[in-house]
């Protein structure tokens, strides 16, 4: 079994984008061609087109197709979108209660969690940067790291908050039209005893509405039929999106929270959980639904999946798979992400 990956990406000085195409075997791959598909997208092989790693450099925004051969036979066709990174401003507020009801994470931990989240989100062409604005509200206090704040609250604002409704915590110290992350102690346990790692609480509707479609070849996530021989022609795939989730009188609030249930903020496993929880919930803020499953950990029904069933396990928006497995985003999701008011 061989698998083909796009990884170890590098952004060069000229802000052109490089992708390294690798193959998980000792055999050599060859990039046969890089085609423009639509929107004027252009890319080119950078260096040799053969080897166990081949670099592809994006030149102009739009969709491209990369064809890969192995031992002379075409083994993969990869549709990709070339774009410049969209930087999105964000701020973090650490919401602490009295002793025993504080968050485990400090400002320096949060910087690391954000860096990991960005690794997962960059495949979708977005990158979160800390806002250096001076706005402080709700008796919050600035920390030594610009864009990260602390606020002290009553225990119930940060501990065992309700999963339903709109938590007070994610309204604290927020700034309109940028992403507001809030670290809290905990959400009330699910009936099964399970704990919520994080939740998206406030986001306007996508500019695409509640559905978005794609009919390119190969199909997004290679949903069968893929359109590649011997498969039949690719069909139009439609993905359902979340509708808006907004509290009264706060139409420009984008917010989510992360809880101590993510574990140790400094262990490798914990940092990965915090980072991917942030990336997953950002997906919801950007109107993505769960991929494939309609349940969360603990068996509690959520707002529903996106209507697509592929890939079965690996998508970042999988409802409950672990961070070591659920990591990918696909073309349809990228398309949707860039229709959110937050990425405008």
């Amino acid at each position: 079994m061989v698998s083909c990956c796009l990884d170890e990406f590098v952004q060069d000085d000229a802000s052109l984008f490089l992708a390294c195409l690798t193959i998980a075997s000792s055999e050599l791959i060859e990039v046969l061609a890089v085609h423009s598909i639509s929107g004027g997208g252009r890319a080119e092989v950078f260096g040799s087109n053969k080897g166990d790693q081949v670099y592809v450099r994006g030149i102009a925004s739009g969709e491209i197709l990369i064809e890969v051969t192995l031992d002379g036979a075409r083994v993969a066709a990869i549709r990709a979108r070339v774009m410049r990174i969209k930087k999105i401003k964000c701020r973090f507020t650490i919401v602490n209660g009295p002793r025993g009801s504080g968050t485990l994470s400090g400002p320096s931990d949060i910087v690391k969690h954000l860096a990991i989240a960005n690794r997962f989100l960059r495949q979708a062409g977005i990158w979160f940067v800390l806002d250096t604005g001076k706005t402080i509200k709700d008796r919050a206090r600035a920390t030594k790291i610009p864009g990260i704040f602390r606020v002290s609250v009553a225990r119930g604002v940060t501990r065992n908050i309700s999963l339903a409704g709109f938590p007070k915590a994610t309204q604290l110290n927020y700034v309109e039209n940028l992403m507001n992350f809030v670290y809290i102690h905990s959400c009330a346990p699910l009936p099964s005893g399970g704990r919520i790692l994080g939740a998206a609480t406030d986001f306007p509707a996508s500019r695409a509405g509640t559905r978005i479609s794609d009919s390119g070849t190969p199909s997004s996530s290679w949903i069968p039929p893929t359109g590649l021989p011997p498969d039949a022609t690719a069909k139009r795939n439609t993905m359902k999106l979340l509708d808006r989730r907004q509290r009264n009188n706060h139409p420009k609030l984008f917010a989510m929270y992360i809880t101590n249930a993510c574990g140790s903020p400094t262990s490798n496993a914990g940092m990965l959980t915090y980072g991917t929880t942030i990336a997953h919930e950002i997906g919801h803020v950007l109107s993505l639904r769960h991929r494939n499953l309609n349940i969360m950990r603990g068996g509690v029904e959520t707002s529903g999946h996106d209507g697509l069933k592929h890939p079965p396990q690996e998508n970042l928006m999988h409802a409950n798979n672990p961070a070591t497995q659920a990591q990918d985003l696909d073309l349809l999701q990228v398309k949707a992400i860039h229709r959110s008011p937050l990425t405008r």
Partner: protein
Amino acid sequence: MKITRFPLLAASACAVIACGDSTATDATARIATIEETAMAEATSNSETLFNGLLELARGDASRVSELQRRLLDPAVLDVLDSKADYETEMPEDLYIAGLIQALIDRGDAAAHKVLSQLALAPAWAKEDARIELLIRALATVRPATPDAIAFWDKYSEPEDGFANLTIDACIVNGSSPAIDLVAKN
């Protein structure tokens, strides 16, 4: 670390943009496998103490009474889970949670009596996590006892950090006193 994967004949790619350094994974687990040891000497080791108390929770009624006596002792609680544990662990990950669960699983009058007595103990309420565990555990005691109702009533204030749990516990309990408390508050 590979951050985007496109299995052959299984998926198509999205954007050709990203940069990366690496993250790694590890696993941490809290596993108690120590054999049962003499309770008399179990004062300095949380895991040993836990195993001994767990045996009491699973024993006959007289042993459950002994468990009650020990859980009302602040020194025992302090050894079982440290202050640092209470700061860094979720309540259900504490050793004390394992004992509460054993009492819930037991589910008889002896176990219910221990839970009710804990509701009256000032030492028990010194840690938020213990309050939280007991709020949820008392939901299994039906009909709700006056001690349980008084305990829940104390933790039903807005923004006290427990009210969400208390309401859920009362509803799960479902007995008349519990439902009346929800209506009252």
